């Protein structure tokens, strides 16, 4: 157990307002191996994003602990890359200035790092857009820029919070292909929250299903597709014969809780 890369131990979270309190998470425990991509699916409003915020140290859990690399997360962890639903690129900065913002904040803006980020932009098809402003790019490209901004600080762990849901369906498939390729190429460990079951199965090694609020871990599926060699793209993985099988299982699991 101790050598798991990410360990989430018995996390609970209660939100307080003046009128009421809401129990969002209840005794959530799971762990993630190094280099693994884990997806979290669940009914909307069940507290999926809350889990990511707690892992990132942005909010404190009511009880429970998070360990990354055997280190307990107390505060904001600079070694975590967080990717949001929308790109949050700053319109007043060029693409290059946008991707460097993390390094700028962490005061690591040296030549070596800038060269590395430049290489990332070049590799992932943004070579000619470094001096463009975000408004000149398509939604899919902007999301790619957002990922590179996240990767620029060389995070140990990536947290993806519905990273494709602001895109239209076509770009969504294309960008999830791109991003999954980038994650594998850069050998990143990632936890992704999504409400799209197909996306979860096609992109990850394991899928964690949450119940409705207060969320508990319902099941964790080990995704094994016959074509599944890690090099396969999400689009290819969707063609695997077991894909439907997983899809139906997870869908049923979610559905039961909608009816309850």
């Amino acid at each position, binding site marked *: 157990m101790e050598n798991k890369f990410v360990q989430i131990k018995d996390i609970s979270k209660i939100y307080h307002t003046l009128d009421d309190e809401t129990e969002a998470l209840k005794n959530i425990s799971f762990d993630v191996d190094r280099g693994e991509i884990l997806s979290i699916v669940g009914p909307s409003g069940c507290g999926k994003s809350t889990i990511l915020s707690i892992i*990132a140290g*942005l909010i404190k859990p009511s009880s429970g602990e998070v360990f990354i690399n055997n280190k307990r997360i107390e505060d*904001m962890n*600079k070694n*975590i*890359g*967080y990717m*949001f639903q*929308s790109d*949050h690129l*700053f*319109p*007043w*900065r060029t693409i290059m200035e946008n991707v460097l*913002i*993390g390094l*700028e*904040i*962490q005061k690591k803006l040296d030549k070596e790092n800038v060269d590395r980020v430049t290489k990332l932009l070049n590799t992932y098809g943004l070579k*000619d857009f470094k*001096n*463009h*402003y975000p*408004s*000149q790019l398509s939604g899919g490209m902007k999301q790619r820029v957002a990922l590179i901004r996240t990767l620029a*600080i060389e995070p140990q762990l990536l947290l993806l919070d519905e990273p494709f849901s602001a895109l239209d369906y076509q770009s969504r498939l294309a960008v999830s292909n791109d991003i999954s390729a980038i994650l594998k190429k850069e050998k990143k460990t990632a936890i992704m929250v999504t409400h799209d079951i197909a996306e979860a199965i096609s992109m990850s090694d394991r899928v964690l299903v949450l119940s409705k609020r207060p969320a508990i871990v319902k099941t964790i599926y080990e995704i094994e597709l016959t074509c599944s060699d890690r090099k396969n793209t999400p689009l290819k993985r969707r063609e695997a014969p077991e894909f439907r099988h997983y899809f139906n299982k997870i869908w049923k699991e979610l559905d039961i809780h909608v009816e309850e």
Partner: protein
Amino acid sequence: MLKSNQVEEKKYSPEHIQYLKYMKRKNTMVQLSQIALLVLILFLWELSANLNWIDPFFISKPSAIMNLINQFIKDGSLLLHTSISVYEVLMGFVIGTILGTLIAILLWSSEFAAKVLYPYLVVLNALPKIALGPIIIIWAGAGTSGIIVTALSISLIVTIMATFNGFKEVDEEKIKMLQTFGANKFQILQKVVLPATIPTMINTMKINIGMSWVGVIVGEFLVSKAGLGYLIVYGGQVFRLDIVMAGVIVLSIATVIMYKLISILENTLLKWRQ
């Protein structure tokens, strides 16, 4: 940059060239009409004064005003009055903008202070600051300093309110994004809150330049011995309507120039918008 190059290289269809010509002509027509309208009004004014349709004693006439402005330019009094007023306006405006922004930053950095002080700001904002004129003159002195403080009192609260509200409208998620990189409060202010609020600040400056002029003219009405406001009041008291009109015209020219300067600033700061 790349975009504009692409546009230049592209070959347009005859229809598009026709369209561009049409739009250009339309634009020229608007500008010509604007000038024509001004000329027409001046001409009718001059004509009706010369033919005694209106009483030039009360309304003066363009040629008399022009002569007077010429004379003022020659004896240096135009420069004197204008420079005094412009100085007072700029002082009120610059101090108001800087101080207002600083106070807004303080309110932003302490939620508690903001909550405590907000009702006071609302009351101060609603209060017609002109009413404070006499008190300010007594406290700050019957001279340039009193006038600057009058101008400041009008623009300061507006700046604080508008800027602070601008700060609060900055997307929380963008702030959260910076926090995931470990940004501290100062970095959040510097990297996202201030840049995101620049459009709001520019708009506030546009309002404030007018506000500062109001403050300065009121101040000069109350106490001064020089300045455009003084010139206007003096002209009114001695029934020299040409002096009043000359003062108003110079005043509007000065306002337009300052407004233009802020527009230039806006275009430099907000290049990314184009």
